[in-house]
C-alpha cells in the first residue's frame, strides 16, 4: 500500500500513477472479481443441489420405512448410492427379514462395507446378534474381531460374553460381561442388565 499511493506526490502525478496501474492490473482485477463471484455462485448452486438430493433421499427413506416397498429401495440404491439413507433403509430391511436368516445376513453384510463406518459398525453388531442366534459362533467371533473402533468396546465385550454363554463357558462369559461393564458408556442403561447377568453367573 505504501508504494501504491505515493503520499508525497502531487495529485496529478498520483492520478497518472493510478491510471497506469489500472491499465496494467485492471483486467486482472475485474477477472478476479468475476471468478470470485462465479465461484461463490457455483458453490451456492452445488450446495443447493446437494441439499435437494439429500431431501429426496430422506423422502425415499421415510417412504420405505412405512411401505417397505422394494422399488423404493432400488431407487435409493441406484440413484442415491452414496447417501447414508441407502444404508439406513437396508438396516430397516434387515429388521424386516429377521425371520429369514440368509436374507437378513446378506442385507447386513452389504451395510457392513458401507463408507459410513458408523453404520458399518452398527451392521457388524447386528450381524453378530444374528450369528449368535443361529449358532454360527465362529462367524460371530470373526465379525466382532473386525469391529475395532475404541468406543464400541463395551458392546463388543457384551456380544462376546453371549458367545461364551452359548458355548457354556460361563466363567469366561462372566469375565467378558465384567469387561463390558468397564467399557460401556457411563450413562448406559445396558449396565443394569449386565450387572444382573454378572450376579447370576456367580
Amino acid at each position, binding site marked *: 500500500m505504501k508504494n501504491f499511493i505515493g503520499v508525497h506526490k502531487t495529485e496529478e502525478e498520483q492520478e497518472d500513477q493510478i491510471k497506469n496501474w489500472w491499465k496494467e492490473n485492471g483486467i486482472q482485477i475485474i477477472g478476479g472479481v468475476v471468478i470470485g463471484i462465479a465461484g461463490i455462485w457455483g458453490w451456492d448452486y452445488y450446495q443447493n443441489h446437494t441439499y435437494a438430493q439429500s431431501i429426496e433421499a430422506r423422502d425415499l427413506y421415510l417412504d420405505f420405512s412405512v411401505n417397505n416397498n422394494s422399488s423404493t429401495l432400488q431407487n435409493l440404491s441406484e440413484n442415491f448410492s452414496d447417501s447414508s439413507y441407502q444404508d439406513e433403509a437396508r438396516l430397516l430391511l434387515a429388521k424386516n427379514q429377521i425371520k429369514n436368516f440368509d436374507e437378513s445376513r446378506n442385507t447386513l453384510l452389504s451395510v457392513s462395507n458401507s463408507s459410513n463406518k458408523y453404520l458399518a459398525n452398527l451392521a457388524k453388531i447386528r450381524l453378530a446378534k444374528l450369528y449368535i442366534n443361529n449358532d454360527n459362533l465362529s462367524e460371530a467371533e470373526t465379525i466382532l474381531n473386525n469391529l475395532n473402533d475404541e468406543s464400541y468396546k463395551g*458392546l463388543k465385550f457384551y456380544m462376546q460374553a453371549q458367545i461364551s454363554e452359548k458355548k457354556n463357558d460361563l466363567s469366561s462369559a462372566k469375565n467378558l460381561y465384567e469387561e463390558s461393564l468397564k467399557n460401556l458408556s457411563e450413562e448406559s442403561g445396558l449396565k443394569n442388565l449386565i450387572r444382573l447377568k454378572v450376579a447370576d453367573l456367580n
Partner: protein
Amino acid sequence: MLISSIKKKSTGFVAYFIVGLIALTFIVTALYGIDFMGSGQTVAKVGDKEISKTEFLKNFVPQQRNLQQQLGAEYSTDIENILKQTVIDQMVNSQILFQYAQNHGYVTTPKEVQTNIAKNEVFYRDGKFDVDQYKKILRLNGYSVQEYEASQFQQLTQEQLRSNIEKSAFVTDFERKNVTSLLNQERKFDYLEIPVKDFSDQVSITDSMLKDYFDKNQDRFIKPMKVSVDFVELNLDEVTKSISPSDDDLAILYDEEKNRFSTDEERKAQHILVENKVTADQVISLINEGKSFEDLAKEYSIDTGSKDSGGDLGFFGIGVMVPEFETAVFAMKEGEVSAPIKSEFGFHVIKLNKIKESSLKSFDEVKEQLVKIYQKNQGQKMIYDLSDEMTNLAYEGSLEELAEKMNLKLQTSELFSKTSKSPNKKMINAAFSDPVLNRGENSEPIDLGDDKLVVLRLNNLEKSRNLNFDEVKIQVEGIVKTQESKKLADKLTDEIITLISDNQKTDEILKKNNLKWTSVEWTKRDNQKVDPSAIDLAFKAPKPNSKPGISLSKNLGSKNMIVRVNALKTSDESAGNVDRLLNTYETDEFYLATLKELKKEANIEIYRDRL
C-alpha cells in the same frame, strides 16, 4: 498515515478510486452474506466451527437463571462452573452431531419440520394448532419464524442419528429368551442376620485400648475453628418504610405509569375471506338480501381457522391483524359490514360486532398501588445510593461509624464454623475470608439477595484445636466397643460358614448364639417386601445344585448376613416388554458410543478460562 492522507485528498480522483474499491468489497460481501465479523470471543472449537461467547451465553443464561431461582442462596461458584461445563458439553455434542449429519447427507424435510411444530401443544389454542399463537410465542421468545424453523431443522436432523438406529433395532430369539429367563427367575432362600450389637456385652474394653485408638486417630478429634461477627444489615423493607410520597409525587407517577392501569381499545369482528373481488361482492349482496353472516362464512370463507365459527375472530387490539384489515376494522361502526378489503390473504368482508373502549382506572382507585410502586422505585434507588455509601464507609472507617452514619443497628452473631447451617452461606464465606479473618478488616457489602446488604467484621475467634482424651473418651469408647463387637461377629460368621454344610452343627451353634434363619418363599429380584440386602445376596449366590448356594456379606454396617439359596426356577413367560427394553438399551449404547467415537476423531478445543 494512509487514513490522514485520504482525508486530506478526499476530494480528488484518488479518493473516488479508493472508495470504489472499498465499496466493491462491501457489495460482494452483502450480496453473498459473507460474514467477516465474528460474534465475540471464541470459547470452543469443533473442527472448523467456532463457538462464540455470545452463542454460549444464549444457552447458558436461561439455565443459570433457572438454577439460581431453584437453589437460591445455595447457588455457588462451584455449581456455576459445573453448569458451564454441562452447557458447553451439550453445545459441543450438538455441533458434533450436526457435522456428522452434514458430512453424511442427513437432512429433515420441510414437511417433517412442520409436522413436528404442529404437534407441539405450546402452540395450541382451543385444542388445535393456532398460527397466531405460534407467531406470538416465537415473538415472546425472541425468535423469528425462519430462525425457529431452522433450529427445528437442526434439532430434528441431529436426533436422527439416534432415531434411525432405534427404528432398525431388532431382538433375536436367543436374546429375548436369555433376558426373559433372567428377569423371571425366582429363588427360595433362608437368611441369617448376625447383629454386631449382640456382642457388646462380651467385649472387655481397657483404658489402654481407648488411649491407643485415640493416639492413632487424633486427626478425627479436632474442634473446628469458630468465629462470631459484628454486622450491620441494610434492607429494602426498612428503607421503604421511611418513604411517604406526597399526592403530587403520586400524581406524577400516575401519569407516567398510566398504561399499567389502562386497557387498550379492542374490537370484536367476524369476517369472510374469499379469493377474489367478484366473490366478495357476491357475498355482500347476499348479506344485503338478509342472508346470515354466519352461514355465509361457513359456506364461502377460505379462512380455515374461523369459517366453522361463522367467521368470528373474537376481540383483538391494535397490532394483531394485517394492517389493511386493522385499518378497516378500527374505522367501522358497531354493526356495520365493510366493502371488500384486500390483504395478502385475499378479500375480506368484515362485520364489526362490538367495541370495547379503552379504559383507565382512576387515581383514587389505584392510589394504594401507586404508593407501593413509588416506595419500591425510590427504595431501590436509595438502596443503590446507600450501597455506595456503605461501600465507602466500610472501606474507610469502623463498623460503629458506619452504623451511626447510616442509622443502622450494629448486631452480633453467635459463634459459627465454616460448615454451620446459619448464618447465610455468603456471610460465612465472607467471615472466613482473608481480609476479615486475618487482617481484621470490614468485609465488602455482601449481597444476600432480596435487596439485603450486610457488612461484617470479626468479633471473636475460637481457634481450631485437637480435643484432649478426656473430652472425647465416651465417643472413643463407643467406637472401640463397636470395633471389638464387629470382630466377634465376624469370627462367628466365619465359624458358621465353615460348618454350613453340616445342618446339625450349624443349628447347634445358632442356638447357642440365639440366632435364627429367616425363610423366604419363591421371590423375584424386584420383591420390595424382603430386606434388600437379603435379596441382593440371594441373587448373587451360586446356583444350588446338590448343595444350597451360599453367599455372605460382612460389609453391611450394623450386621453381617449369610444367605442360603435352596432352590431356583424360571419361566419363559413374557416378562414385561423385554423387546422394548433391549432395543432401548442397545440403541442408547450404540448412540453414545458413536458420539464418543465422533468426538474422539474431531478436533475439539474448549477454552475453559473464557467461559
